[in-house]
């Protein structure tokens, strides 16, 4: 666990906690989030004067929405905005490697103790875990968590998985109809395909055109000969919980 203070960033009042990225990190799939518009964040924090901007060094850092750098920038923006209003205000920025892990979250302890509000730039899971660990302090979201996706190219992320708990990829040529088809259709394209593009957005590929072509390439279209049964939504009762078989005894699950 690498945690080090790297000193001030943009303002004397902003401290950055940083860590070392694994070089493999950028090859991972990511939970993609987008920074909320600044006016929305500013309005959420209207009544507070000592704010911790909590970054997360994994997914939201990879998608340039909520890592160390973005936390520092947001803290600076908040400071400048408050200065413009001649309001007494202090924002500090800190980041841990992952907000979805208690071991890392506890590193925020001292920072949170100094704050009267926290704005987390982690995904929705991280924000909730942070709020759970520090229930005495209001925690606000600084990003809108958008999807589980991949880095298509520099600065472009696209969704790939809706975590449906019943993966169909084996019969769809490795292309997910639940995610990649706008309607999530399991048995083929709707009637709206436009020259291989999606009726919902002509810039996007029609998932079922892609699936059919992939299966054709693999001489496997026969795998789609019969109807696929409806999705079992009872496998995806929210909130989801998974206990690895090796840990069942510890958690008293038969």
């Amino acid at each position: 666990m690498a945690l080090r203070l790297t000193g001030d960033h943009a303002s004397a009042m902003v401290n950055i906690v940083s860590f070392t990225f694994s070089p493999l990190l950028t090859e991972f799939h990511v939970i993609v989030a987008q920074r909320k518009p600044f006016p929305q964040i500013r309005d959420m924090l209207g009544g507070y004067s000592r704010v911790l901007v909590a970054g997360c060094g994994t997914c939201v850092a990879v998608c340039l929405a909520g890592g160390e750098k973005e936390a520092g920038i947001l803290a600076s923006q908040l400071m400048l905005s408050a200065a413009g209003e001649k309001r007494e205000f202090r924002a500090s920025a800190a980041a841990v490697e992952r907000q979805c892990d208690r071991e890392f979250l506890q590193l925020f302890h001292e920072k949170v103790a100094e704050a009267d509000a926290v704005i987390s730039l982690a995904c929705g899971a991280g924000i909730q875990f942070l709020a759970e660990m520090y229930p005495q302090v209001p925690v606000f979201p600084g990003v809108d968590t958008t999807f589980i996706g991949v880095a298509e190219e520099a600065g472009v992320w696209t969704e790939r998985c809706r975590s449906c708990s019943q993966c169909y990829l084996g019969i769809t040529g490795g292309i997910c109809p639940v995610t990649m088809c706008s309607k999530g259709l399991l048995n083929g394209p709707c009637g709206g395909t436009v020259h291989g593009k999606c009726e919902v957005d002509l810039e996007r590929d029609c998932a079922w055109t892609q699936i059919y072509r992939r299966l054709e390439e693999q001489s496997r279209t026969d795998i789609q000969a019969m109807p696929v049964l409806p999705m079992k939504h009872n496998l995806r009762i929210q909130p989801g919980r998974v206990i690895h078989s090796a840990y069942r005894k510890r958690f008293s699950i038969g």
Partner: protein
Amino acid sequence: MADPFQEGLASGSFQVVTRLVPPKSADLASVLTLASSWKGKVAAVLVADNPSAVMGLSALVLAEMLKREGHDAILVMSCRDRNRLDLGSIALGASAVSVSSILCVSGDYTHYGDHPDAKPVYDLDSVQLIAMLHEMGKGRDIAGNPVAVSQPYFIGAAVCATADPLFPQLMKVRKKVSAGADFFVTLPIFTVDQLGPFLDGVKDLPLKVLAGVLLPSYQEIAEYRDGSIPGTFIPDDLVNAWREGGEQAFSASSANHVKKLVSDLRNSGKVAGVCINASPGREPEIEGLLRA
């Protein structure tokens, strides 16, 4: 006892069906008047279900009213707006009021309509909805529970015969047949030739196909590009000719085109019938197309 539409289709006679869009109103007078102008000239009235994702009166209520007025009705059920429980409820309700012909569609995506923020449901897709109705007709709901319906459903399926690429559509058509589809209705076509590749692709299947035809609005033609009307592809030369003719000439030329198309389809022997659609504002002109 089979419905007139079902019997007509089985008899092999050319079936003419007209599509009626439920109004955004609880007053049904105008649509019932419109339907009465078609009486005796059509095999059935196909009742659309929130078409183009625009919210309107319940399709089942209108289908029931049409039945009461002596029309045969085909109820459209879209997967977009309801989950499998509600689809089952509506199917039971339809059976209770003797609406047994049901056309199953996925449904245009919500963002096309007047409630773009709505949650698109698609709990089932159209293949699964067909299978659900087929099973209900045999006495089981989609979860396997016993269910009682008045008679098996006469199940319709939609297809885009002009899709590019066509093969994925053909794959889905075969699934729909396996699931229990009794007849198909194409999305609108504009020439008999447009049906060629599709009919070639299903020639080994004993399909009863109604070709969809459309009386479009001038605005749709003026703004037309592939994709602007979901699942509808209008040949370039026709779009250009209609645009060049101008709005005044369009009304007559498009009506003549559709009337001739219906006649050509009837004479071609390639399809079991037609389903006549009219864009908003042109519904009263359908009656003119039905005259010999």
